[in-house]
């Protein structure tokens, strides 16, 4: 399977999984616009390569490796959308398809350069969250200040926004994106780098999330919490 096709599959599965928990063959077929039979074949191939866990008749879920790959492509896709809209002023209707084609050929170096050029955007033109990069940086401003320097080395651990943790799951704060006053406020409330925090619960309909930190609980707006990136701890307590 061509790497381009593979990445498209992983991206679609990530989208569907986020909505429905498991990606059914029929749903994937609709999303990548091919016949269900070819999907089954492709899933088998992805499963052999260790990107998905495929159960016939049920559907597919991403493995850790597959998820990481899918997130990386998603991030590139959304960065490209911002670039196409804000810099090249391409019509909003076309940016998705354009980005879909470009995303597979982007190198790490170009991705970092693009992120710097666009001032580390947080959201794509359609409002979806752009994932954090996988570089070893402490904050976006640190990276932006470096100017032309080559990208920092990659992190070993995957990064997740705290909103993507499961209720009860813990993570260690890796970095917080956002403007200085919000970061300062969060820091003053005890959300400093490398602090362990736990997602207590998420309010329905993308409402605020409740986070336990230093024996206190905070309710944080969903959009702000999206910018708190953590390296998840393995076990889920409770």
């Amino acid at each position, binding site marked *: 399977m061509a790497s381009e096709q593979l990445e498209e599959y992983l991206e679609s599965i990530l989208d569907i999984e986020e909505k429905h928990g498991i990606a059914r063959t029929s749903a994937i077929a609709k999303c990548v616009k091919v016949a269900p039979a070819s999907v089954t074949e492709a899933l088998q191939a992805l499963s052999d390569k260790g990107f998905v866990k495929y159960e016939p008749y049920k559907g597919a879920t991403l493995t850790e490796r597959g998820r990481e790959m899918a997130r990386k492509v998603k991030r590139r896709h959304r960065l490209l959308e911002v670039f196409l809209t804000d810099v090249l002023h391409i019509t909003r209707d076309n940016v998705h398809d354009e980005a879909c084609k470009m995303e597979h050929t982007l190198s790490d170096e170009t991705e970092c350069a693009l992120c710097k050029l666009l001032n580390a955007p947080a959201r794509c033109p359609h409002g979806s969250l752009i994932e954090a990069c996988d570089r070893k940086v402490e904050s976006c*401003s640190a990276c932006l200040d470096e100017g032309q320097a080559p990208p920092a080395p990659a992190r070993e651990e995957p990064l997740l926004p705290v909103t993507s943790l499961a209720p009860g799951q813990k993570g260690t704060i890796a970095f917080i994106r956002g403007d200085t006053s*919000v970061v*300062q406020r969060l820091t003053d409330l*005890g959300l*400093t780098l490398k602090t362990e925090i736990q997602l207590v619960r998420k309010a329905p309909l*993308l409402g*605020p999330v409740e986070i336990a930190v230093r024996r*206190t609980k905070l*309710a944080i*707006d969903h959009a702000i919490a999206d910018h708190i990136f953590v390296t998840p701890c393995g076990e889920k307590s409770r």
Partner: protein
Amino acid sequence: MSGCKNCSGCDILHPPVDTKTEYVVALAGNANVGKSATFNQLTGVDQDIGNWPGKTVERAEALLQHRGRRIRVIDLPGIYSITALSTEEQVSREFIAHDRPDVVVNVLDASALERNLFFTLQLTELESPLVIALNQADLAAKKGIVLDAGKLSDLLGVPVIPTVAIQGKGIAELSDAIVSATSSRPRPKIIRYGKEVEDRIARIQALLPEGSGGYPPRWTAIKLLEGDPDTVWEVRQHSLDVAAAALESGRELEKIHGEPAATVMSAERYHAAEELAASVMEIRPPGDNEVSLTEKVDRIALHPVLGYLLLAATIGGLLVWTFVIGAWISGVLTEFLSGIAPVEPLITGTLPEIIFNGAWTGFVAALTLIVPYVIPFYLVLALIEDSGFLTRFSLMLDKGMHRMGLHGKAIIPLVLGFGCTVPACLSCRIIEAPKQKLIAAFLVTLIPCSARTIVILGVVAVFVNIWWALALYLLVFVLIVVLGRLAFRLLPGESVGMIMEMPDYHVPHLQGVLGQTWQRTRSLIGIVLPAYIIGSIVITGAYAAGLLEPINAALYPVTVILLGLPAVTGVVFIFGIIRKEMTILALAAILGTTVFSDVLTPIQIIVFGLVTLLYAPCISTILALAKDFGWKAALSITALETSLAIALGTLVFHLIGPFL
């Protein structure tokens, strides 16, 4: 004067001569740690307490007289950090850093020691004479956290007193510690941070001239390093070189950590706080997997379905309960009072007769129409405040509030608005962004306060039926949403998201709840009873003298033609601007009865209720709005709500009237 034969004059017999007659002590600490409860216990006054962060938005003061010392105690709004800057936090920052009280009593929540010590460390930087009250030690113990107060005292170099303020435990010891601290001025030890930071602090400190600005040099150095605008500006006045060197050090720090220097400093303080906390804290894990009360209640209160049901039931229940209990007490009182003398305010007769009738009408109206509804209402409101449910409502409604450009915290002033609009407007200060603060205050003025609730329950529900009363409420809630959305669209400025602490639930403290209810009822009676008696005499007198006719005539086009009400209501609405309850009184005094259904048709009662709900906020509210937002905003809100009331009243009268 016995003993101490060989004494050459020790401190006990010859205390240091102290010319000061009054000392100032400030209570400071994080939000919702029990500062107000401590304040009440120390001074014996009744400052409102409640279980949500941000309850005290203005400083309160009272006198503590202990061991011959007169001490002015000041209760400050909660503050998490001296760098943080919402309006209420600024009050605290200014007072501690600028006014420099004789002693700062830092109240700590023992169960969240790290976060609380983070603020303590900032106080040590300021080198404020410090006494620490380690509060809620009982709750911490329940969570399996055992603290060594003696060790904390050694580490920080200041007295540490364990307290349970709500029960008055440790207060005597705290009072003693405060009194001796006014003489001994215990300076906290300096807690050192990491080397990278300390090197730079030392470098800046060396450059500073002696005694600049009256602040400790170390504090000034840290503030310069953080790039605090006020401090930088201050230092620039004397020496541009020092300011430039300090900013350079700050920039180095930013380079190393990739974060603003202020954030680096916060992280350093947290690191030091962690170490302090770890060395005085012993954690005994509570029984296996025992689910805490808070967690159990939250499973319902924050449940996607049950949570909203609970919320609706609470607000609905508050109104129905107030009506049911209020109507019952009112009935008993009316029966009793009508046995003494009938209410028939005469506007003819001799002067003493008019005065007596006016006074008696006012007295009866206050006792039968106001007091019965206020007591059950305040009781439930106090329960809601004391338990910690308010913050849960904030969380559940946050997303909905976004549609009005607000966030969940705005729920707190809105719910308080059911009590009295004035403190509710002031509590909008817990909201950070100016635009959001203004929208919240505007919507708060629309929430039916207890005075308006009394008018609706005591007039519409009693003389038409409760369904119409509830329908009017529903209409107001719809209006709040619609107007909120409009204000969000039309006003300039940006909206920011919510960050709020979620306190544990408390089982409401019976004494506290009853005390708060009584306190509020008493202050209301203190105002309403005399106001009613005097107001009633004035109205009946003025009416008898024919002075009210010109006002009624001037308002005739609005009251009679548009709203379909009797002409006398013109005066009623004017009086209502003083206090909304006055509308009932004025109506009773002028119509000559407290049984309104005898003289008004149902549609007239409904329109009267609707207009009273919406038209101009009362004088006190207008003043509170003007104070926080300026006269332009206050008068615009007044004008807007008055026109809205007239427009809707007219619509209801002409559209629904024919069907009733």
